[in-house]
């Protein structure tokens, strides 16, 4: 026990330093009467029903506290009384902008417990759809950031080009928003004819979108002035808060579950792609990494489309699924970050306990620390750059 005391003090030192940094951003010199601004629950900036109670000094935030729960649907409880295939319908609605990606980790966790593995073709299609829902989601996040900083046009471009991706997802799954397509042991259906070429065209359009938006938004001086050096998350603070996905890679942490902690059932190791990071840790770096991820995503999809093996899309699983007793945790790299399901089974039709580790919950939990000392307009850009979906926080 004695050996860890220097380490311990170092940890505490770090925490202290970061806390001091947050405090120092609040200008305590000029004392004016504070004002409490209530952003939300219905507010244009929160894209959903997040409420932020911000104590202001002038336009500077002294303390900010998010209030959630306006959309809490209790999926963890509901999952306990549903059969395993029925749970996918629920979890589809967690991050409703990239729905398919919500199903994947749960199905993989169930597969792990059942010790079945989907056939290769199903794994490929699953990975493609997972990546496409990532693209569909992140595109919207980029466009939404435009709205947060006051540019009205990017969001329309985002919606336009997201539609191409959604059309392709719909062509396979029959659902634009809630595919509910993943099955334990494989997928519901095979690809329709001509889908591969159409998807490649769609990916081409997404790449065009990336170029357009880079010119329109990222290259804009005002956009850079609004995001550079704003909302800096140091590496260790981000890790301690459990930030994931782009938000941690934007702080220079080279960690991507797709590459590093890949679960069986996805085939990201079969393709050539790059994990982008940015050392700055500010709003701009998060948005920049996000844009690069869309580009990488299109590359991944293109390569996978070329490689899809033939074969069945469903492994042999019983008609009525009973999952053997055990516990399994599977996490995947979802659009908003790392999403994981901790599934406890008692050998029944229903899961005994499903802990949903959603990305946005952790990502947003840093806001009280991060928003301290910033100005009111920066609240919006910081929240926009963290990019959360309310369903992913409240579950």
């Amino acid at each position: 026990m004695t050996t860890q005391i220097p380490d311990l003090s170092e940890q505490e030192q770090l925490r202290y330093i970061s806390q001091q940094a947050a405090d120092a951003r609040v200008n305590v010199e000029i004392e004016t009467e504070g004002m409490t601004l209530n952003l939300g629950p219905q507010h244009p900036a929160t894209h959903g029903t997040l409420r932020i109670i911000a104590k202001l000094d002038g336009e500077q935030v002294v303390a900010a506290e998010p209030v959630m729960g306006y959309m809490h649907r209790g999926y963890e409880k509901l999952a306990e009384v549903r059969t395993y295939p029925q749970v996918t319908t629920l979890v589809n609605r967690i991050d409703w902008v990239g729905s398919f990606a919500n199903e994947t980790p749960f199905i993989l966790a169930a597969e792990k417990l059942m010790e079945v593995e989907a056939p290769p073709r199903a794994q490929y299609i699953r990975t493609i759809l997972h990546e496409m829902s990532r693209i569909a989601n992140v595109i919207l996040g980029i466009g939404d950031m435009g709205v947060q900083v006051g540019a009205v046009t990017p969001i329309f471009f985002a919606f336009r080009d997201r539609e191409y991706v959604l059309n392709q997802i719909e062509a396979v799954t029959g659902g634009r928003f809630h595919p509910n397509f993943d099955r334990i042991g494989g997928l519901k259906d095979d690809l329709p004819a001509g889908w591969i070429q159409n998807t490649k065209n769609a990916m081409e359009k997404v790449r065009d979108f990336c170029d357009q938006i880079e010119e329109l938004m990222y290259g804009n001086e005002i956009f850079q002035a609004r995001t550079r050096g704003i909302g800096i998350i140091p590496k260790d603070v981000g890790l301690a808060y459990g930030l994931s996905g782009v938000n941690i890679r934007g702080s220079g942490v080279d960690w991507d579950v797709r590459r590093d902690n890949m679960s069986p059932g996805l085939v990201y190791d079969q393709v050539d792609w790059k994990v982008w990071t940015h050392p700055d840790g500010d709003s701009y770096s998060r948005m920049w990494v996000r844009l690069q991820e869309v580009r990488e995503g299109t590359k991944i999809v293109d390569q996978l489309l070329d490689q899809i093996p033939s074969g069945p899309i469903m492994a042999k699983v019983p008609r009525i699924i009973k999952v053997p007793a055990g516990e399994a945790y599977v996490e995947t790299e979802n659009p908003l970050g790392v999403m994981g399901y901790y599934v406890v089974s008692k050998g029944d039709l229903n899961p005994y306990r499903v802990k949903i580790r959603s990305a946005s919950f952790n990502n947003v939990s840093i806001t009280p620390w991060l928003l301290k000392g910033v100005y009111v307009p920066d609240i919006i850009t910081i929240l926009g750059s963290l990019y959360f979906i309310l369903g992913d926080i409240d579950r």
Partner: protein
Amino acid sequence: MSDETAVDTVDEADVVAETDEVREATLASLTDEVGDGIVESHIRPNDDIWVRVSRDAWVDTGMALKSMGFGYFSFLSAIDWMPSPFGRDMDSQVDLTLNPPEDEDDDVVMETGVAGGDTRFQVFARVNDIVNNRAITLKADLPDDDLSIATWIPVYSGANWHEREAAEMFGIDFVGHPNLRNLYLPGAFEGNPMRKDFALLSRRIKPWPGIVDVEPMPGEDEEGEDA
């Protein structure tokens, strides 16, 4: 609950042996740090590692893990091992005929999961070492008469909201938490929804239709009409 170690294929065995070493080493160094705080542990080869620690060693374990490189906080939650008193009595009749409840005996047997457990409530958390791609799931039993455990906020700041959620959902007191208010539920909400004995009201009012449409497996078209 430790039958997952059964390995079915032969070629996986060498992989198992290799990764086992990593996880065993992790466990060993953790044991060095925490000592007898570790009650039980379980390693699923090539996959995951579970460590159950005593309640008093909870914070120490967290700090030890953080100093070992597990700097990434993934989640913290709790689990109620007491089987639901309602069981499956509100499932539809179809489900009950298809899958009759296995043990009809009335005395409720509490079985716990991986790495065991002695009491009804267990707090569990997961931290990652993102450099070496290791992750560890920690568990700690809470005595039934004192549902409290020290807060993890000094170790992992991100535990703040997770503990609030666990507190309102399970009624667990996190000692030292600065702001243990309800996160999701209204302030005046009574009860702890995630406890197994908290009835899911909609289920009590209206039985679940159950497995009404089992879709045919791809390839065996329209044969499952008899269900």
